[in-house]
């Protein structure tokens, strides 16, 4: 269906014709310079011997060779895959579920919604400490449950190199799932109740109703949620630093912590830039087709 306003044919009124583009152009200009320009800059840096500050001694592919020789980089990539997919899926499931439940004329809805939403307001600089304590077997959940008399209870994920990445998922879901819930709730409230009533009269089961009619209509909400979540997953830095610092050992290293550490802590800016380039390429590989297909369907 048509979305576009047909422009009036008026050859003289150039300004009116160009106005929308003029309004958009500053945004486009800054993004071209400060995003795409910087990507290009980073791309160039990744072929140089930059260490503490950018320098331009060409070293070819050396940084990339070093990067893929590093054990920590492989771990970081694996972790991002595990963390990113779990995080996005769980957030969507929890967010959608809570939104559906909260949409059932719940008493004190506003209050509950605020509770679900507030974690987004807190920075991980400190909630990290609270989570760290809570997950620590010596002082947190495990200790409390054991003090209640359930001696066999064990919850030591944060200390276990194989499980630690999942504790990061728990804390990350805690932070954003409420926001995702709000997005879905907004979507649910935007759906035509008439259609639902008609379907209900036709005898559709509750489950079928959600599956066939309601959830498909939430597609824009899913898209927004996916973009928000994917961006949070890739940028997760504060969270990992606050919770595990990349440990135990290097078990919870993610690309963002890797890149920061090589660029700024280890003074190997060239390798840091190379990791940023690989990161961006992977993001592009996932996001570009996604954005493309979403945008095409809107036409």
């Amino acid at each position, binding site marked *: 269906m048509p979305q576009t*306003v047909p422009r009036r044919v008026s050859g003289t009124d150039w300004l009116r014709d160009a106005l929308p583009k003029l309004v958009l152009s500053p945004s486009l200009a800054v*993004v071209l310079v400060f995003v795409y320009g910087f990507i290009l800059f980073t791309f160039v840096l990744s072929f140089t011997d930059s260490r503490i500050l950018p320098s331009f001694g060409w070293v070819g592919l050396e940084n990339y060779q070093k990067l893929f020789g590093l054990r920590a980089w492989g771990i970081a990539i694996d972790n991002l895959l595990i963390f990113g997919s779990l995080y996005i899926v769980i957030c969507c499931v929890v967010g959608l579920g809570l939104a559906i439940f909260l949409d059932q004329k719940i008493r004190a809805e506003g209050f509950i919604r605020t509770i679900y939403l507030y974690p987004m307001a807190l*920075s991980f600089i400190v909630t990290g400490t609270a989570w760290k304590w809570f997950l620590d077997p010596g002082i947190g959940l495990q200790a409390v449950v054991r003090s209640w008399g359930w001696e066999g209870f064990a919850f030591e994920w944060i200390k276990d190199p194989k499980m630690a990445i999942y504790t990061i998922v728990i804390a990350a879901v805690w932070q954003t799932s409420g926001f995702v819930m709000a997005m879905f709730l907004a979507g649910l409230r*935007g759906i035509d109740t008439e259609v639902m009533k008609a379907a209900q009269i036709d005898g559709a089961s509750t489950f079928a109703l959600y599956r066939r009619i309601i959830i498909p209509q939430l597609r824009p909400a899913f898209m*927004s949620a996916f973009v928000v979540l994917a961006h949070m997953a*890739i*940028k997760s830095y504060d969270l990992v630093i606050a919770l595990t610092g990349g440990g135990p050992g290097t078990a919870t290293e993610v690309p963002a912590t890797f890149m*920061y550490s090589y660029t700024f802590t280890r003074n190997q800016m060239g390798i840091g830039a190379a990791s*940023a380039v690989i990161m961006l390429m992977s993001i592009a590989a996932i996001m570009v087709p996604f954005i493309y297909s979403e945008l095409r369907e809107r036409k």
Partner: protein
Amino acid sequence: MASDVRAGASAAAIRPVGAPGSSQVIRTGGTARVAIYLILGLFCLYYLLPLYVMVVNSLKPLSEIQAGGMMSLPRDWTVEPWGKAWSTAQIGVAATGLRPFFLNSILMVVPAVALSTVLGAMNGYVLTKWRFRGDTWVFGMLLFACFIPFQMVLIPMARLLGLMGLAGTVPGLIFVHLVYGIGFSTLYFKNYYQQFPTELVRAAQIDGAGFFTIFRRIMLPSSGPIAVVCIIWQFTNIWNDFLFGASFSDFDSQPMTVALNNLVQSSTGVKEYNVHFAGAIMAALPTLLVYVVAGRYFVRGLMAGSVKG
């Protein structure tokens, strides 16, 4: 999209009509409702737990924390950590507490949020109602910009800010946040305006209304809910940002997160966890306030049925 088809049918659809909010689909017997409340309650616990840890420990003397028992209620209740975090804790050389840094943050956050929201609204308006050849590409480029890792842009950004004479200034910081906020604010507004009946815009245009008039008279009045979402998002991100705030500020413009970080991250000193937690909650209060206050309008806006089909 199904919802769009009917959206244009009536102008009333865009005005607040106070339609009922909940769609309540699950036909509920007693047990189902109990189960729903139970689940919602359990999730409340999940979301509140870290806050509990923070609040409880911010009301204890430090000795109690050091002796263990970080999860238990205080034996000696005290509000001293709060006073300390606010006005006497050592942030740098001076023992100022977090107080002076609030203003710095507000001076930065308010303009940055306002500007990026307005810009996002304009962009969304153009991209949905004044489409042109290649607009999808433009939107795609803006959207992909959301994904750039901030650590990567630090050095080139510093260089350009220096060249523009904005290094270490509040306008510089606002500019940085504006640049990296465009992607999301445009996304929010575009998705929202997409549902908005284009026929109305066309009709106004035939009546001779110009680009800005249509925006002001027709689009803006119905943008409440999405503006709230956008403001919440931008406010949270900018208020909580540490990396840019630390790197692009000067001694007299350091935002609150930098101060909080200084309070919390001392490397070789004694860690006063109770003061840290008090400070953290305090630092989050403005965002919490935005959530509580704006959250209400958020829902009210949604209930007004502005995006109802």
